[in-house]
């Protein structure tokens, strides 16, 4: 008996067609024909069920886990140009990063030389003259904007990836809500033409903007060592760790900001 359809006669051809049906690679007309044939041919239907079953079993196999360490190693490949290397990933990216470090070092030597020969300071102007002012301006803009944050979330696991996705660098977004400083979100701050990640915290009715400049980037290098900075009526506190140079700005009282800085440092040291 010859079925009146255009399906192949040889079993091998039919098997490929069954398989294409399982894989969703047939057009509607072919699906219709082969389904009609399947309905009247139990052996063919059993073969179809076997192919579907083995395909499904392979599909359901457990996938290898992507460990955090591995993901970080791979992410570091994309970050080597745009951000300072994290210490943990340094061994992976070291060959690519070394010229970068070298330039940063050369720059800091130059800054030292410039500082030493005070007269040429203005002629050279190698670094932003007052980063604290620029950060305070950024904070003021944030207060004036419709929303002080571009991504509003108290969840650090939302804010950090958002910043990573936007500019490829994000500081540790520690949660200090229990200590009175609630993370409300993050935004991208452009200071001296460099896009930098900024976290925004709320303390009572005060907002605190925390700008983090990756160490080794041009932003925030050569900053004065004095801890007491204030600009444009805002308190500014500055500190650094291995990965970032931090600038916290707020209209809150100075001791509040100091307290924030200490708690943030303590929390990031634990991470």
């Amino acid at each position, binding site marked *: 008996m010859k079925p009146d359809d255009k399906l192949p006669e040889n*079993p*091998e051809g039919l*098997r*490929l067609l069954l*398989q*294409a049906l399982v*894989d969703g*690679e047939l057009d509607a007309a072919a699906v219709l024909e082969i389904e009609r044939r399947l309905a009247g041919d139990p*052996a063919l239907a*059993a*073969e179809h*069920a*076997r*192919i*579907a*079953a*083995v*395909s*499904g*079993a*392979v*599909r*359901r*196999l*457990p*996938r*290898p886990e*992507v460990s955090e360490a*591995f*993901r970080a*190693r*791979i*992410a570091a*490949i*994309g*970050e*080597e*140009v*745009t951000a300072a290397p994290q210490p943990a990933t340094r061994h*992976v990216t070291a060959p690519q990063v070394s010229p970068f470090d070298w330039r940063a070092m050369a720059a800091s030597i130059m800054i030292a030389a410039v500082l030493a020969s005070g007269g040429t300071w203005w002629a050279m102007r190698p670094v932003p003259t007052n980063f604290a002012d620029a950060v305070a301006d950024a904070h003021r803009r944030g207060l004036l904007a419709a929303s002080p944050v571009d991504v509003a979330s108290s969840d650090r696991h939302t804010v950090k990836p958002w910043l*990573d*996705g936007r500019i*490829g660098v994000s500081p540790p977004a520690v949660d200090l809500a229990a200590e009175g400083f609630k993370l409300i979100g993050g935004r991208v701050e452009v200071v001296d033409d460099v896009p930098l990640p900024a976290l925004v915290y709320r303390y009572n009715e005060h907002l605190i903007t925390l700008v983090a400049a990756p160490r080794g980037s041009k932003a925030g290098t050569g900053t004065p060592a004095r801890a007491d900075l204030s600009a444009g009526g805002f308190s500014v506190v500055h500190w650094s760790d291995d990965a970032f140079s931090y600038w916290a700005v707020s209209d809150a009282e100075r001791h509040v900001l100091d307290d924030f800085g200490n708690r943030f440092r303590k929390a990031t040291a634990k991470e």
Partner: protein
Amino acid sequence: MSGRLAGERFREVVLPHLPDALSLARWLTGNAHDAEDVVQEACLKAHAGIGTYAGGNARAWLLTIVRHAAYTWLAKNRPRNLVAVGGLSDLDELAPQPDAANTPEAALLEKADANALQVAIAALPLAFREVVVLRDVNGLGYREIAQMLDVPIGTVMSRLARGRGTLILELGKGQ
């Protein structure tokens, strides 16, 4: 492409597909540790060549690079596993012919033990194994696989059929 742009592109195009990249590398190299080395190597290449990614299926693009890296790795570390790829016509003889007498029921296959299935996949000749993995683990279509392997779609279909046919028979044995 500037470094910053390349870095952004890399994160968009590559990072979401790491699980797929690791799965493919795992099935090609045979173990998870070597898979990480292969994927890292592939990601370095992907980053360097991110400018050549012209849109389209990012997963297929990355997996093509991973496959190349895996073959390079195999050539260096497991040259014997690659021998079969040269003469695929020999493989036709290896491929089982469907035989109604000892083919298991679909219901048995559905309940197949995951370990037995993994052993059976690992035992497949590389040319069949990679097509099965690209299709059912990585979810690529026939056309994408054909492009990646640089073979006609018909070849992809018959390798897939042979790969699956072997798995069906192997699983049937264990029942």
